[in-house]
């Protein structure tokens, strides 16, 4: 059983005990503990159950590579699943619960899967659940969802604060081990601006645990001195608890910093650093590989390096009797550390035929039994290790001896952490002697000028011995000389099926040697395909432990060398990062900028119900006390059509186009002619893209001989301005045209209704009579003391003036209109009333009648397409056969027979079925509303041969079997003769 030792622990402060709970059970650790070391120190070996077979699992590692020991942390709105205990610093009051079991960690129903493992082979989802088709959705998926998956997702909003920060540096050093610190010293002394990111809370990496001497000092002392030197340099920023998550295009690196974790002192919880680095030095170290032997996942089987980390860093003994299983010299350090802690090493099992290096000899000299040419046939125990059966590594697993133990420390060699090197295209090379992929220095990731973006140092470069690592930086260092390892991918080499069924490669996804071999037999050759098929290397650890072992097994099964198989792609982030950090401050009110019209505050004070339009908020309606939105909309419509209404139209796009070639330019931009528009006149225009599809519409006004004002839709102003600039800058750059987007420079108010003229006349200052200001004209002057442009245009069919005043006078003008209009019964109206009124008149709305596949000809807007012009944007496209096809659906009005309101977007069905067995269709609804003027539902839609089928009744099936019957009618429902505007 694991326990806390009475002495030692270089990282813990025994004067500061911390209380926490695991599955409700109170436990105690120390400041400096990780949650993992605290749990292990409290005797908790089993920490969860596995994903697929629900096998008991415990800690395998001591760092970011840990695949098993993931827990739920916190409760309610601070609950987080899948928290890696090895990278979670212990804090007072931590509440952890284990995952992936039901009803309890100790007794779990799902563990029955482990008995039926033969029926859950690689790709079992694909194989087993193909038929019958309905069963996937209704039977298999619900069952799998219940039994698989890791922690539960939180249900409430995250109360913590997160932020993002930006920085620039000449050199970013990733990893604060001795290699990283040495590289940082060299670069900093050369005057470079240096940032060093270290993912843990401590500097020095493995060296203080593994020992040796640097520059005549203990590694710990050298690290302390190096950190002190760097801290004093103004050009260096040292960042602990900051994981370099990814290295992207042109040296863009992401750092994930833990700042005020569980601090509740106002600091953000996490900070995401977005760093542009001239050069990134990856000093990210290496990760030890497990060995694939039967039962290598039983709680108590750990990486050899992790065992000595727990002993040395946190004074935690993973077990009293530790058997070491290895194929290399480094693991002997663990045996020595175990012995030095006063614990027992019954045997070191070395797969190599001989072990004569410095470290094995030292172990023998200390009286530890070294067995060479041996392997583990099987680990005994289920919820914890009780012993190992030893066999010949070269054989099939015949048991030679059984050794009792409660911990197995395994080492299959080391794999450099090449993630950041690979993220941005750095290539790898297979090192046969060390049995590892390491960065190929001749093929680094490259930057904007083709220069190398990254350099790699230390263990990340495949240098595993202290002397070699420091030699790179020109610093003398020594450690025990290590003999070469012997690659061991399966233990024993000829392991029988029964053993391989429990020899795990990927702990997190429960992928075994037998699964990868099965995939190879079934024809999987690509390592990427094998990954998806077997799930090897997926989920939150992304194969940090399993990758190399898995592809070695695959290569062996396919009878080809490992470098031919290659690795799967390394993708950021290196370890999972919080959604909060990715979101930063962009949530709630700061999610996106809010654009406000000058009258926004007035609307708000009047209790407007908002509708988002692009980044704007527009009043949807202004409900009075006790009024529903529907009632408010109807009241606003009736009042506008009876008395007078005011609409805040400030969001409407207003783009000025000016210059000698402005008319010619607008003739290209709009489908109709704009160059011949007389000064002072207005004209409705359509814009199409080069595909011929309708893109935007609005009223164009000729302000003067060389100046036009183009109104666009509210959501389209920026896009259309960009569109204009694109053509002017990239195609017709010799045309003399200037554009300016003046949308926010003017407030605009639509004064609409039979009393509109009387209201404006009361304000006074301009002649707004029918004679002086006829329909589709414009005048400039002063209204009620406000400098104003008055456009006599109408989107409602009513007598209507749209009046633009300078933005800073918008609110005052709006208030003046409301005050003056009181005697006329003036009321503001919102966007919904606007929509209904335009639909009553059969006016189209971009985004309702159009969806990016509709051409003006579909909408009966042929009158707005110039026949005289040789060219306009979209003209050639509209000549294509499909665009001139008479079978294109055309715009009509639709009236239900019973007066009800058609559901939006429903389709009219036709006879017969299509190739997919679905009903054929012959039309669809594009806009549908209740008209309070007509007291019935009205709708517009696109229908096959629609305009030729007036009076025909179509069937529109809707939800729950309802079928709406609607008659094809003229799309103008209200005031067909247009008398109301003609006054």
């Amino acid at each position, binding site marked *: 059983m694991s326990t806390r030792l009475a002495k030692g622990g270089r990282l813990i402060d025994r004067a500061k005990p911390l209380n926490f709970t695991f599955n409700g059970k109170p436990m105690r650790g120390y400041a400096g503990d990780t949650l993992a070391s605290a749990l292990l120190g409290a005797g908790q070996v089993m920490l969860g159950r596995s994903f697929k077979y629900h096998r008991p699992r415990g800690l395998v590692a001591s760092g970011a590579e840990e695949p098993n020991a993931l827990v739920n942390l916190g409760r309610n709105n601070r609950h987080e699943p899948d928290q890696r205990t090895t990278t979670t610093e212990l804090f007072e009051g931590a509440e952890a619960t284990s995952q992936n079991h039901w009803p309890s960690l100790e007794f779990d129903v799902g563990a029955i899967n482990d008995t039926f493992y033969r029926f859950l082979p690689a790709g079992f989802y694909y194989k087993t659940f193909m038929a019958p088709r309905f069963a996937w959705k209704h039977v298999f998926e619900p069952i799998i969802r219940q039994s698989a998956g890791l922690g539960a997702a939180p249900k409430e909003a995250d109360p913590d604060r997160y932020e993002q920060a930006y920085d620039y540096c000449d050199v970013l050093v990733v990893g604060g081990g001795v290699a990283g610190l040495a590289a940082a010293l060299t670069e900093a002394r050369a005057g470079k601006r240096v940032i060093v990111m270290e993912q843990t809370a401590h500097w020095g990496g493995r060296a203080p645990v593994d020992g040796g001497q640097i520059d005549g000092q203990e590694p710990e002392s050298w690290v302390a001195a190096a950190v002190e030197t760097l801290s004093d340099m103004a050009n260096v920023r040292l960042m602990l608890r900051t994981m370099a998550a990814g290295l992207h295009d*042109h040296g863009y690196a992401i750092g994930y910093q833990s700042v005020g974790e569980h601090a509740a002192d106002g600091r953000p919880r996490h900070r995401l650093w977005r760093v542009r680095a001239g050069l990134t030095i990856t000093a990210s170290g290496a990760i030890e590989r497990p060995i694939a032997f039967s039962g290598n996942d039983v709680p108590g089987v750990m990486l050899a390096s992790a065992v000595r980390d727990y002993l040395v860093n946190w004074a935690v003994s993973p077990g009293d009797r530790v058997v070491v299983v290895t194929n290399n010299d480094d693991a002997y350090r663990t045996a020595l550390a175990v012995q030095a802690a006063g614990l027992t090493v019954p045997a070191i099992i070395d797969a190599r035929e001989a072990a004569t290096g410095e470290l094995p000899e030292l172990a023998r000299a200390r009286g530890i039994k070294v067995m060479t040419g041996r392997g583990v046939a099987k680990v005994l125990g289920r919820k914890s290790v009780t012993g190992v059966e030893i066999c010949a590594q070269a054989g099939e697993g015949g048991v030679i001896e059984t050794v009792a133990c409660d911990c197995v420390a395994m080492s299959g060699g080391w794999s450099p952490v090449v993630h950041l090197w690979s993220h941005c295209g750095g290539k790898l090379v297979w090192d046969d002697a060390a049995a590892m992929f390491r960065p190929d220095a001749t093929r680094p990731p490259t930057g*904007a*000028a*083709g220069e190398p973006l990254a350099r790699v140092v230390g263990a990340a470069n495949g240098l595993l011995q202290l002397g070699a690592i420091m030699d790179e930086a020109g610093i003398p260092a020594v450690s025990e000389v290590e003999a070469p390892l012997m690659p061991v991918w399966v233990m024993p080499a000829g392991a029988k099926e029964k053993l391989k069924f429990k020899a795990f490669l990927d702990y997190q996804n429960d992928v075994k040697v037998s699964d990868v071999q099965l995939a190879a037999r079934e024809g999987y050759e690509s390592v990427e395909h094998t990954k998806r098929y077997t799930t090897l290397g997926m989920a939150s650890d992304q194969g940090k432990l399993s990758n190399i072992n898995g592809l070695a097994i695959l290569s062996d099964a396919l009878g080809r060398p490992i470098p031919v198989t290659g690795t799967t792609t390394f993708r950021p982030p290196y370890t999972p990062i919080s959604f909060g950090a990715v979101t930063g401050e962009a949530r709630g009110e700061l999610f996106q900028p809010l654009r406000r019209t000058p009258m926004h505050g007035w609307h708000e004070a009047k209790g407007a119900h908002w509708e988002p339009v692009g980044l704007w908020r527009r009043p949807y309606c202004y409900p009075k006390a006790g009024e529903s939105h529907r009632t408010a909309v109807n009241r606003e419509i009736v009042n506008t059509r009876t008395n007078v209404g005011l609409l805040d139209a400030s969001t409407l796009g207003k783009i000025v186009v000016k210059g000698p070639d402005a008319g010619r330019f607008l003739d290209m931009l709009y489908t109709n002619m704009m160059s011949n528009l007389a000064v002072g006149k207005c004209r409705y225009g359509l814009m199409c893209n080069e595909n011929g599809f309708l893109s935007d519409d609005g009223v164009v006004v000729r302000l003067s001989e060389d100046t036009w004002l183009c109104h666009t839709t509210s959501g389209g102003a920026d896009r259309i301005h960009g569109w204009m600039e694109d053509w002017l800058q990239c195609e017709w750059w010799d045309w003399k045209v200037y554009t300016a987007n003046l949308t926010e420079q003017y407030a605009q108010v639509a004064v609409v209704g039979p009393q509109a003229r009387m209201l404006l006349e009361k304000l006074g200052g301009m002649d707004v009579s029918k004679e002086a200001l006829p329909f589709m004209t414009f005048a400039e002057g002063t209204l009620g003391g406000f400098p104003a442009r008055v456009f006599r245009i109408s989107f409602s069919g009513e007598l209507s003036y749209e009046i633009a005043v300078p933005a800073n006078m918008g609110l005052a003008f709006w208030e003046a209109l409301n005050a003056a209009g009181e005697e006329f019964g003036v009321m503001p109206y919102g966007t919904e009333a606007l929509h209904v009124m335009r639909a009553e008149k059969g006016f189209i709305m971009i985004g309702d009648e159009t969806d990016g596949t509709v051409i003006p000809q579909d909408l009966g807007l042929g009158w707005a397409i110039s026949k005289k012009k*040789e060219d306009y944007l979209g003209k*050639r496209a509209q000549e294509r056969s499909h665009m001139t096809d008479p079978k294109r659906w055309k715009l009509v009005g639709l009236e239900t027979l019973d007066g009800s309101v058609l559901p939006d977007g429903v389709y009219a069905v036709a006879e017969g079925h299509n190739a997919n067995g679905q009903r054929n269709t012959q039309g669809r609804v594009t806009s549908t509303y209740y008209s309070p003027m007509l007291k019935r539902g009205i709708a517009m839609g696109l229908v096959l041969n629609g305009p030729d089928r007036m009076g025909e009744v179509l069937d529109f099936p809707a939800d729950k079997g309802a079928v709406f019957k609607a008659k094809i009618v003229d799309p103008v429902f209200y005031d067909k003769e247009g008398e109301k505007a003609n006054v």
Partner: protein
Amino acid sequence: MLTLTCPYCGVTVEETELAPGGEAHLKRFGPGASDEDFEGYLFARKNPKGVHFERWRHAYGCGKWFLAARCTATLEVFGTYPAQTTEPPAELIVKINEKRPNWGGWK
């Protein structure tokens, strides 16, 4: 995330300041063009693995469109230049020839 130098401002900016505009040096075909020419203009794009000429707008800066020559495989940027041209600058072609001898030209 790329960095590109706006040839108007002369500043090297992050991709978030820019808006992409697809392949550069397309010839527009309008009314009177054959179906093949029009289809090519509207839809056919080179999409090479290698040297690519493309349009970018310094959308959150000066608002100007510019053109860039960039390797789509390594993201190396060979140069940027104003959009008011029908072909890449000669010195840029020389530079690309040096760096990618077998690139096959821009047309």
